[in-house]
């Protein structure tokens, strides 16, 4: 009798110990199937060479793919550089303009609410449509050059010149997501208590110091979030390049994601593509850790 009682208690305790694991199982299943497995499989596949249609005929080559990427072929390093340039430019301009626009549009007026909607609209349009429209606007006989020639200025070759193609892509990317990030900054601005600015006025604070010593620190959690999200999104940019330049002219707008796509569907070299994917993942991981370690400390949380 006594032993039975103890056994019952024990099994109940085991139940209690198991409960949390049972609870998280569904979420863990999703994570394993859709995140963990593809990740590990990607790393595994990067040690082989094979064709997309025949994954069964793969040959083990060890680190040869990586050697190819980083030391033999030049195009990957170019893609890496392009991605870095693109990311730095997009992160800088997006955050700068998002803060400036947010400060401009913060006040609730009819004009501001219209302007807010207007700059948000591109976010709702499919990238493929945006690509089409901007390809026309930036065509050598397109809208921009028409405007330039109206003012008697020489036209630019925009997407057709390796000198201006990357900056053109950056312009489109910033234009497309500016409204979304501005919205985030506006809501953050509005949540700063007005008394703090009034106290600053009483403390004889000039506009410059008010912005850098109060506004920016108060926005820091949102700006940090923007920094990470925009960096990751920029590293993975694909659709803009695919629809507007196809990585050209030359390799001037070839970025990592497009490079991977190109090696899968055009060159059919899965080994190169998967190892490039691993490098991309590694860079993003390092970047994120770096951000949290270096920048995260300066972020103020309420």
């Amino acid at each position, binding site marked *: 009798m006594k032993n039975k009682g103890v056994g019952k208690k024990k099994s109940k305790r085991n139940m209690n110990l198991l409960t949390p694991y049972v609870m998280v199982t569904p979420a863990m299943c999703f994570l394993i199937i859709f995140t963990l497995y593809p990740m590990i499989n990607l790393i595994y596949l990067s040690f082989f060479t094979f064709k997309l249609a025949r994954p069964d005929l793969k040959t083990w080559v060890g680190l040869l793919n990586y050697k190819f990427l980083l030391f033999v072929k030049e195009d990957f390093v170019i893609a890496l550089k392009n991605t870095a340039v693109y990311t730095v430019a997009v992160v800088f301009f997006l955050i700068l303009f998002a803060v400036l626009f947010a400060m401009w549009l913060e006040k609730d007026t009819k004009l501001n609410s219209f302007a807010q909607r207007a700059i948000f609209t591109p976010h709702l349009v499919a990238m493929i449509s945006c690509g089409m429209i901007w390809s026309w606007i930036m065509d050598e006989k397109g809208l921009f050059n028409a405007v330039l020639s109206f003012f008697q200025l020489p036209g630019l070759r925009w997407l057709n010149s390796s000198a201006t193609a990357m900056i053109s892509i950056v312009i489109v990317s910033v234009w497309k997501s500016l409204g979304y990030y501005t919205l985030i900054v506006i809501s953050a601005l509005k949540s700063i208590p007005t*008394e703090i600015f009034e*106290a600053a*006025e*009483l403390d*004889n*604070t000039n506009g410059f*110091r008010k912005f850098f010593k109060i506004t920016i*620190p108060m926005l820091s959690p949102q700006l940090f979030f923007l920094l990470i999200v925009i960096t990751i999104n920029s590293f993975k940019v694909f659709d803009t390049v695919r629809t507007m330049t196809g990585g050209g002219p030359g390799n001037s707008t070839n970025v990592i994601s497009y490079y991977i796509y190109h090696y899968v569907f055009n060159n059919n070299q899965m080994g190169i593509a998967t190892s490039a994917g691993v490098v991309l993942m590694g860079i993003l991981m390092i970047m994120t850790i770096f951000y949290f370690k270096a920048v995260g400390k300066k972020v*103020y949380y309420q």
Partner: protein
Amino acid sequence: MGDIVFKGINKSFGNTKVIEDLNLTIKDGEFTVLVGASGCGKTTLLRMIAGIGPATSGELLINGENITDIPPGKRDIAMVFQNYAIYPTMSVRGNIEFGLKNNKVPKKERNRLIAEISEIVGLTPYLDRKPSALSGGQRQRVALARAMVKKPSVFLMDEPLSNLDAKLRVAMRSELIELHNQLKTTFVYVTHDQVEAMSMADTIILMDHGKIQQHASPEIIYNDPNNIFTAQFIGTPPMNIIPLNEGIKLGFRPEKIKLSREITNSKFQRKCHLITREMLGSETLYKAILENETIMIKSLEAEFRMGEDVYISIEDTDLYFFAADGNRIRKGDVPDYNKLLKMVGGSWNEE
């Protein structure tokens, strides 16, 4: 610094007029308390002095000089906000130092001032903490230190104690009185709490719906109210108001009532019926029915019970008369003040 003078001040928010044609002088060096229910315009006045909520029209003078166009930072004033409004991203030191840095005070002088002020308010051990790691009372002190370190000629305080617990509030109250005694600068203090107003002020400005009801010392406000609003706002429980004939009303304070079981030879005497009794310790609060009117009685004697019939008596000097419009009728205001006294004596005295 000189007196602060409001001349014909109007203020409206959108279409709502909050303050209409207000004239007021706040004396230099005094502890002035603006008191009134929420929405009476007291904070609006304070923000005008600070320069962060300008008047719609009218003039604001300090020391005879129109300061309407002077920015808040150049007015030589400091303000303590209701929710403190300390900069959450800066340390305690950073908060206190911010205004000094803006005013280009040299570093040596800054450190000296910070050390001095943080010693006074007891923040020295917390200088490097962030405000989020401080208690409510400590945050309050940061706000106070930030104001004090600027050595302003005018201190503005917008309900600075309302977020503190009762015990701390009482302690801070006497600390502020002490601070004013030391600094001898002008304090303008906004509160909705009449106890705070009475205990701290040199001068009370009682406001209602954007109008000044009475502007006087606490003693005068309590003993010689201008109107029914003042009489009922100050004092706990508020003054009893009993309607007489011809719209005239009689007022008397609950704490001035004498209770007895037998008739005494007092002139104003009335029988009433006790309906509740609250023993508060040193005092006892009774609610009573007097000729269909409910009155409150505050007495040192706790021996009377619920349901008892008792006699109340009040001295002539503790009886107040008010006209139909709510304004006070004082002794010199009417030709025959004794007629009023007789009126209550005659019609109220049963014997």
